């Protein structure tokens, strides 16, 4: 079986949504500096595009657990 880190380099949907909520919350709430705001915004934008690309995935992934691999 592939190592977890290799198979999932990008954030999961759950992690991405959590981070996006944090970003929006801090942009809406306290006043980070303009520079920090822009950094947060950039991060949010790149997370969103990663997630939207993943949502559009077309190839289904199915692997079979081999019997010798059960240990």
């Amino acid at each position: 079986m592939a190592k977890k880190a290799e198979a999932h380099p990008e954030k999961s949907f759950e992690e991405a949504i959590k981070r996006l909520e944090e970003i929006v919350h801090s942009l809406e709430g306290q006043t980070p500096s303009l520079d920090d705001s822009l950094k947060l915004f950039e991060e949010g934008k790149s997370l969103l595009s990663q997630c939207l690309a993943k949502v559009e995935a077309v190839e289904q992934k199915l692997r079979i657990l081999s019997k010798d691999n059960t240990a």
Partner: protein
Amino acid sequence: MAEASALSVSELSARIKIVLEGGLPLLWVQGEVSQFTQHRSGHCYFTLSDEQSQLSCVLWRGRVAQQMALPQVGDLILAYGKVVVYERGGRYQFDCYELRPAGVGELSLAFEALKQKLAAEGLFALERKIPLPPIPERIGLVTSPDGAALQDILRVARERAPWTEFLLAPAAVQGSGAAAEIAAGIKALDKSGWPQVIIVGRGGGSPEDLWAFNEAAVVRAVAECQTPIVSAVGHEVDVTLCDLAADLRAPTPSAAAEMVLPDKEALQQRFDELRLRLQRSMEGRITEYRRWLMDYAAVLMRNSVMSVWREESQRTDELGRRLGAAGARMMESWRSDLNLLQEKLGSLNPHAVLARGYSIVRRQKDATPVIRATDLAVDEAIRITFHQGEAGARITHSETGS
């Protein structure tokens, strides 16, 4: 003559053995238990019968241990095994691998009995149930690689969540050995730590077909599974002990996929909302910053004493407007505008200008800044403000400059 072609008893017996054992593969036979004895050795001997015939059966000690419950006289049962011929006694016997209650009544009695037993062990307890993750992306499956259940789950996943990855632990879902394979599949997936949710199940079938999902090995594996596990056995009306032990019971395999997997549309909508909020919050931030900038520019305007400053102020103003207009469009380009603006603001600081060698000239009488040399009369008193300190002076002559 007849003597020459005659077989010995042993020869015939050997042939009978070959014909019978070779001609009859492993099979299920159904009948009523009419005699039953368990020998001191642990082996069980009994007779299966129907209206016309009888069949001697044996269940060896090793297999007795695997049986959920031993049948009693009068029980209608299904026996899985093969015919074995004993040449020495000239007899044949049915060698049973596995026994199951047959008929709905018996099945449901066995079901109830096992259910009581496993419930007493706490395997169905609510506090054992683990909540499912809201958006799982890695799913483990325990089912037949050739069954409808697998295809149903994959089809639903393609519609709802095509990015989902699956790991299948192939297992026979009916017949002898099915329960052991299902239990082993659950354990292997659980141990791998890979799936976020496991779905165990199969498509519809007769109560006998679904029986493996009532066996203690499966129920225990499901109850002990650390990964959230969903049971999807048969149709809506079929309830198995596996269902009761699972963290969630789905009426069918397709329904399991629908319950477990997020909906693509809903997820997209969620991301659209987040995108809108992100955009709005950043616009709000920009507007706020712009307002601050304009306030600062206004202060500078009020304090400005030289036309060069006014000019700079206009540029500040214009930058502010550009910034405002850009706010509705491309956010990325703002970064450079804003950096530029920050530099400009630095140069607009009156002290910074004076530090570069400029001075401010004001009339002595009313302290108004002097913009043109011709505004001054000869001999008029003026005050000069330097970067550090002030000085008084008198005009000796003035000229019209460009």
